[in-house]
């Protein structure tokens, strides 16, 4: 299955892109995506091991199972206001 991955602010700079697609085997959870990204080399190796993630625009725990077509957004510490 494929998921869309979004990066914002500092994480976008680490990733060098705002968006990518990732192919996963079924049964994968959010933390599997984190592991893959951190192991992929480049700036994302410095992604926190437990970053805040939103799936389909809702904050979720890293144990959340993923489905094909999900949008997985990596949310750096927020600083609105």
């Amino acid at each position, binding site marked *: 299955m494929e998921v869309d991955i*979004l990066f*914002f*602010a*500092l994480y976008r700079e680490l990733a060098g892109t705002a968006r990518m697609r990732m192919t996963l085997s079924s049964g994968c959870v959010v933390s599997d995506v984190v592991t893959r990204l951190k192991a992929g080399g480049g700036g994302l190796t410095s992604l*926190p*091991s*437990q*970053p*805040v*993630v*939103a799936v389909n*625009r809702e*904050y*979720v*725990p*890293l144990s959340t199972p993923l489905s094909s077509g999900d949008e997985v*957004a990596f*949310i*750096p*510490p*927020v*600083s*609105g*206001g």
Partner: protein
Amino acid sequence: MSATPSPPVESPSSPPPFARITDAPLDGEALLARIAHPSHGAQLLFLGVVRDMNEGKEVEGIRYEAFREMAEPVLLSLLRSAQDQWPGVRAGAEHRFGHLHVGEASVMVAVSSPHRAEAYEASRWIMDELKQSLPVWKEELYRDGESQWLKGNSPVSNRGEE
């Protein structure tokens, strides 16, 4: 036959709140007009404004980045929660994104209520919560040409400790 179904009725004192993430300058009067109610004696408008100094550095402006598609529903949900906690209160809020200069408003929260006490409480609560969970980021731009993403807050997502 069951009883005649009644049409859905929105309580006049708690309509859906108004939330917007925008790159346009914020208009406080327009937001206050959206939440006004004839039986409300208090209207409160809070503006968060870009200031010229932070941690000893001269600030030229702030570049705000937002996950717009998520920030708007998150803001709406905060406002709904405020209206639930302070019944009778009406709330609206807007947050800007893009490059803002010193003196420009980046966020505004408007609250109206029958009396002022709950307006002050709700307004403060909304701003505190928004800073904790709204997916918006600020990159401070300094007069010396440098810039940095400000340290922020981690929204709660049952993710465990870092």
